């Protein structure tokens, strides 16, 4: 009977300790990445290669999603705004929603499932096939050679992808609002320009996406590096990357929004 009460408590304690342990481990991992970043940034072609795989390969999905999200915002925004007779504000609505929230958050979610999961799988497989061991035996630090370039590639790519997402979204809103529904093009842009502030909206949005870039890539490389070196372990780590990233993006978004706006 007491066992019935104690075992859930024990499980709770176990998972709490585990969570704290992992948090400490990921912090130390980040410190190690930063420590060895110097030597890997000196050989910037390694990072450029990873920007290609993480950033350039994510452009298509980000651009297409951005366009559709902008078009949906255009349609829904027009329907809602026209009820209050302020359809003119559509440009402002589309731009503000994208710049402040949807752009950074959705681009980060797409990035984590497109590039983050690939990073985890790649590093996990390198670990499983002893490539990381081989590296360290060859006196090459795997964190400097493998992890740090991927980390910086993610941090650099994320704001660029978010900016692309925003531009495509605004273009999508323009397509629906101006080209399809027939709002005045001048009003669309001037309403947008009057309501969007460079520092408050554009820069804060980019700062958000930079923060997302850091957490998403950190989670991705950490899960890969920490993966159990088996097929099942790598696949579990990949899933964890996507799930954890999504949760952390939304939680960090809440915190940043509370501080920024």
């Amino acid at each position, binding site marked *: 009977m007491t066992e019935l009460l104690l075992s859930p408590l024990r499980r709770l304690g176990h998972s709490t300790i585990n969570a704290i342990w992992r948090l400490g481990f990921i912090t130390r991992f980040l410190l190690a990445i930063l420590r060895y970043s110097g030597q890997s940034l000196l050989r910037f072609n390694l990072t450029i290669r990873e920007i290609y795989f993480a950033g350039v390969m994510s452009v298509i999905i980000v651009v297409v999603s951005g366009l559709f999200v902008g078009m949906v915002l255009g349609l829904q925004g027009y329907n809602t705004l026209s009820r209050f007779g302020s359809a003119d504000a559509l440009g402002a609505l589309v731009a503000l929603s994208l710049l402040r929230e949807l752009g950074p958050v959705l681009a980060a979610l797409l990035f984590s499932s497109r590039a983050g999961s690939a990073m985890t799988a*790649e590093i996990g*497989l*390198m670990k499983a*096939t*002893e*490539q990381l*061991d*081989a590296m*360290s*035996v*060859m*006196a*090459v630090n795997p964190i400097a*050679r493998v992890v740090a370039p991927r980390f910086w590639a993610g941090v650099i790519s994320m704001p660029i992808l978010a900016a692309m997402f925003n531009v495509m979204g605004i273009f999508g809103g323009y397509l629906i609002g101006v080209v399809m529904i027939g709002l005045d093009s001048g009003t669309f842009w001037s309403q947008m320009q009057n309501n969007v502030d460079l520092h408050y909206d554009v820069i804060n949005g980019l700062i958000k996406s930079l923060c997302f870039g850091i957490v998403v890539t950190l989670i991705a490389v950490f899960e890969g590096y920490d993966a159990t070196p088996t097929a099942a372990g790598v696949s579990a780590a990949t899933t964890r990357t996507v799930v954890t990233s999504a949760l952390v993006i939304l939680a960090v978004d809440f915190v940043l929004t509370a501080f920024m706006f």
Partner: protein
Amino acid sequence: MSSDHFIEFRNVSFAYGERPILKNISLTIPRGKLVAIMGGSGSGKTTMLRLIAGQIPPSAGQVLVDGRDVAAMNHAELFEHRRRMGMLFQFGALFTDLSVGDNVAFPIREHTRLPESMIHDLVIMKLAAVGLRGTQALMPAELSGGMARRVALARAIALDPQLMLYDEPFTGLDPISLGVIAHLIKKLNDALGTTSIMVTHDVHKSLDIVDYVYFVSNGEIVADGTPEDIRSSPSPWVHQFMWGEADGPVHFAYPASTSLQQDLGLKGSQHD
């Protein structure tokens, strides 16, 4: 004389948590020799290589390489030590995102500032040494298991190491590839004057090429000697290992704590 013994284990023990892997092992490996460490799976052979490479520290005792304690080395010394060492992994561990040429060039590019043209020539020479000149542009996925192992060997000798570690070099190879790898290991050891340690459970092929053998079982050295000594060894353990007998000093059955009858609930079962 420590200069004659390139590698020395002094009363080395190692345990993963509570589980002991190596128990009080002492052995010496002379400079320039090719030595095999043999034993069943899970007997702690690979752990010994990891101790030499400095990937893990021993729980007790010392591992000396060229007279220096590996566990006492600082970060820079350890990397210096590894730079003079080559290791062939069980399945090659080639970098799958790099071509064959870039794999072989990897340690050269990481540790030297040689011009690309010289690296190119070195890569060709190393690949020629393992008989794979002309494969530079291939990706590891396009190689057979035996070829991948040879490329990995070329990569391991890229910086002309003083010490070569082979982790199960024969695993998963067909007899011809196996013969080629064994021949190459012997040839490279003689040509480069490298001290080589090979961890394996392939007895007959190894006995043909090595200078000395240590047999490890359950974390202890159970037999050692030259290949001739081993072939004529009276030890029942060596006999069982060499001829692959199912039962002998190494028991077929796992030492279960309960009897079969108890497990099946036939008699003497103790239900609460």
